[in-house]
């Protein structure tokens, strides 16, 4: 009897502890978002989004940084997608399981944990200097593509692995080749999972600052970039720049830009969640 009571007490205690842990995260996040909204929301209007940077806080806008971020996002996707999915398909379906593939596997997982500034240094040396891309959008995109490649590979592999073996069996038994099985069964069936991983990886890329500063992205760009070889800024760098200024007005600008950046990542995550749910439904019913 005593024992049962004890267990119940433990149960309750743990429940309270669990609730406290969950709430702590939520409370901190909402305090943060709340204070940002209070500071920045009044500053957001159409002008703020379409204005070029300026020395006066009231006239400054995020247009160049926003277009820079969009450019980076699009090019990073174009570069990282085929490379990441290709590598994942190879490792999952083609590579012989052995020592070599397990070494590759461990190293890809390790790469996912390398600090992003290291990728910046790599990008500076390889893309900016050796390949002479300069401090361009293209160099930035390649650098960020490298940064998110491990995440894309790992999540794509997980998605492909989640397709039941029976689907492979069925496809091969009907005389399909490996590529037919991959392209007509495995990729469509794992599409949602792959997409989820890619979107999450991209929403990380869109918030990266360090590697882009290292390769020479500018804090002040007078014109919006119009080609991949242009110099550029991105939202996080713009925010960093504004925060480091003494005038109060720029602090408000920074808060407003943070809201925009958060909005972008939240939307991307929402899309990822949507596709994951849809995909799970498709596989399970």
């Amino acid at each position, binding site marked *: 009897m005593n024992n049962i009571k004890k267990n119940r007490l433990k149960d309750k205690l743990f429940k309270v502890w669990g609730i406290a842990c969950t709430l702590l995260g939520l409370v901190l996040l909402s305090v943060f978002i709340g204070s940002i909204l209070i500071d920045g929301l009044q500053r957001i209007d159409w002008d703020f989004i379409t204005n070029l940077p300026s020395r006066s806080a009231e006239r400054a806008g995020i247009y160049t940084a926003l277009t820079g971020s969009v450019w980076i996002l699009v090019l990073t996707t174009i570069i990282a997608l085929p490379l990441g999915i290709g590598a994942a398909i190879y490792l999952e379906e083609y590579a012989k399981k052995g020592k070599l593939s397990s070494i590759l596997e461990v190293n890809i997982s390790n790469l996912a944990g390398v600090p992003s500034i290291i990728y910046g240094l790599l990008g500076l040396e390889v893309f900016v200097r050796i390949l002479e891309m300069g401090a361009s959008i293209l160099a930035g995109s390649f650098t960020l593509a490298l940064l998110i490649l491990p995440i894309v590979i790992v999540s794509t592999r997980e998605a492909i692995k989640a397709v039941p073996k029976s689907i492979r069996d*069925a496809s091969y*038994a*009907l*005389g399909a080749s490996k590529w037919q099985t991959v392209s007509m*069964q495995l990729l469509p069936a794992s599409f949602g999972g792959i997409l989820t991983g890619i979107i999450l990886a991209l929403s990380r890329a869109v918030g990266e600052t360090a590697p882009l500063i290292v390769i020479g992205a500018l804090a002040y760009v007078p014109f919006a970039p119009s080609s991949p070889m242009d110099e550029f800024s991105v939202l996080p760098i713009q925010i960093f720049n504004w925060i480091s200024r003494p005038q109060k007005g720029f602090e408000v600008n920074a808060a407003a830009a943070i809201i925009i950046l958060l909005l972008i990542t939240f939307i991307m995550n929402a899309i990822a969640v949507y596709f994951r749910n849809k995909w799970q439904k498709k596989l399970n019913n």
Partner: protein
Amino acid sequence: MAEKIKQLMLMVKKEKEPLIDKSIKRQHKLQATGIKVFYNNFEAIKGIDMNIKANKVTAFIGPSGCGKSTFLRLFNRMNDYIDGFRVEGEISIDGKDIYRKKVNVEQLRKQVGMVFQKPNPFPKSIFENVAYGLKIQGIKDKKFLQEKVEESLKQVSLWEEVKDDLNKSALALSGGQQQRLCIARTLAVEPSIILMDEPTSALDPISTAKIEELIFELKSKYTIVIVTHNMQQAARISDRTAFFYMGELVEYDSTKKIFTNPEKKQTENYITGRFG
């Protein structure tokens, strides 16, 4: 016109198929000689010789892990993907060794269809499921595909149940319907041999009865090899039965003989339920 040409080309393609020479009528469709199978160092099959007749149903029975599924999967080379798999001996279909280097495995699998233990339809529409085997051969003619899908679904008596919603997801069908769909999918590519790996073990008795009926009908056109754990099923539907134990073929004879008057004590013990 274009369709005719396509169909003509399809016929030519079929005639060119090197693997199965239909002009030579052999009594034995499948021949296995001195077969040993290894998974790394584990010997899963320890030297089996076996001939399987055309247009008959041959049942493989035996306790779990006796090697019957492994042996079945040799005939369409589905073991090839398993790490550490190695086979010794010769397996031939219509007199031709299917483990030769030159053999086109994809081509082989079009000749030797397979139905699995758990119904495994693709997460696609009913139509796409049946048409898949043809599409991967490069057939795009819509009318031909439609005819073929209808014909295949009729063969497994599923047509009446699904004809109005061929675009419905195959996953929405019941287990028994799914398994019949999987058989239809196999029939659509016109194999001459169908391997079945415990095709009814995941189904209810009514669905099982339907599949068994189907197997009975199919045998006039196809050579069927079926692995089953269900003794009654083997007795009901097969012409010949092979009893496997510990990677060896203990006894192989007409089903009647195996179930009424087996040569070996081991076979009798298994069939009467004394072990396994």
